[in-house]
């Protein structure tokens, strides 16, 4: 796989100009996502209404291009979705990164398939998935997601 296939223009663009970047004052859900091994650290904020719809979502923090672009594109994608829809997206995203996409998931992911190349780089999968895990933790009432240790959402199942 060429590096251009991994670092697609969309990814580089979101890395340079992350969307929905910054704190969300009125958030009612919030969780941190960290990768202690490489120092990536994000906070994901969400405002969820009574019907369980994600009205707004923002993030802040620092990390590599893959994790930052994944966070940025996630916020764009997730806004206006229900918690269940968000959970389905996380599931599909994870399946894509482990090369286990199921029927219909590719269509569901749409634009997010620009991250498909990450599956060829197992050591970078954690980067792409980190913001999604933080989002999931926030939506499910947790405070923290980590690529390691007790908050490692990846291995919870």
């Amino acid at each position, binding site marked *: 796989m*060429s*590096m*251009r296939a*991994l*670092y697609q223009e969309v990814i*580089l663009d979101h890395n*340079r100009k992350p969307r929905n970047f910054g704190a969300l004052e009125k958030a009612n859900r919030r969780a941190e996502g960290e990768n202690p*091994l*490489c*120092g*990536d*650290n994000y906070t994901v904020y969400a405002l969820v209404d009574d019907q369980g719809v994600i009205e707004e979502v923002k993030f802040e923090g*620092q*990390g*590599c*291009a*893959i994790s*930052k672009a994944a966070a940025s594109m996630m916020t764009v994608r997730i806004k206006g979705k229900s918690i269940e829809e968000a959970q389905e997206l996380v599931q599909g995203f994870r399946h894509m990164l482990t090369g286990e996409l199921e029927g219909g998931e590719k269509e569901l992911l749409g634009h997010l398939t620009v991250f498909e190349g990450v599956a060829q*780089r197992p*050591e*970078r999968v954690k*980067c792409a998935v980190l913001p999604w895990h933080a989002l999931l933790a926030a939506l499910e009432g947790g405070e923290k997601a980590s690529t390691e240790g007790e908050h490692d959402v990846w291995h919870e199942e």
Partner: protein
Amino acid sequence: MEFSAKKRAEAAERPRDWEEIRSDFPILKQSVRDHPLSYLDNAASSQMPQDVIDRLVWYHSGEHSNVHRGVHTLSQRATRAYDQAREKVARFINASETKECIFTSGTTESINLVAHGFGRLFIGEGDRIVISAMEHHSNIVPWQILADEKGAEISVIPMSDRGELILDDFDEMLEGAKLVCVNHVSNALGTVNPIEEIVDRAHKKGVPVLVDGAQAIPHMAVDVQELGCDFYAFSGHKMCGPTGIGVLWGRKEWLEKMQPYQGGGDMILSVTWEGTTYSDLPFKFEAGTPSIAAAIGLGAAIDYLESIGMDRIARREAELLAYGTDRLQELGGIRIVGEAADKASVISFVVDGVHPHDIGTILDDEGVAVRAGHHCAQPVMDRLQIPATARASLAFYNQEIDIDRLVAGLYSVKEIFGV
């Protein structure tokens, strides 16, 4: 199997050139992702030359048995080779006695041994432990654990933006101190610290000094008596030896007073239900069956390094460092982190607008192995206000071409990221 004597005799006649020396390392002959491998992660772990690999194979195929336990021939062979490895270590670092060299699993265990055996005994409530700002986590965390347990406090020797220790307030810091912990060479920055000065000043106040030599021992001739320190710790796998073996050198006067670190077989003279008497040095600190093969492998690595000569290695690495530093600086938008006047061949750097992790992936795609991250030295990163760096760490078996490939890879990084 005396590779060493033969090698040394040969070397005296005709110094082998670096091309030939590189070809001693079979692992470097492979391609990675369709590019010749340029291995620039030597500070994390160095590679083994064929001599060391052969020595391990020979041990496992002709000598393996437990040590110090058997009357039979194999056990005697293993014991002899193991004891010889310790003698090689002692000679290599110029220890005044072989029994001052304790085999451990690595630098980390060596430091923990001192934290237990020395720290528990001599460091109490309100005492101070002085630690430099540029330590690896393995020379921080054992002291934090001890300080918590004992109610001792930790003082940090500050560091400049260039990555040099600031010793202006060092004398005051030594008041009430029971130990100074400092690395000889920083793994994150490459800084060579002025150990002799630190030891002199600490000893004037009666404070012993532990030196983490993990990054110094592969790069320069180390003479523990000349340095004057009290403890010196290092790992085999960073000096062309195998993993699972390391050394703690300590002054006999301290080691004799210290408590054993672990209890078990091989470290006792007699055990009864009434009590136990410990063995003499070094065995008091080597409970259980040691890493026999790895220790023998370390001995072979020492033979190999000596066959080239540590001074020659240091000169060669200084050349490579100068070449690498120049070539990196010619690329715009790159900042070298760690610019001490006295530096070992470690080049930490950041590229504006690109996270080190992404640099690491793109370089790997071109066969160039570097490390990206905080290098187990998070306080160094915090001090310099950067999350991480990319790090190219050079060994004597690297060549200018490896640096050229690194630079080519960095051009790709800049092109892909448009910076």
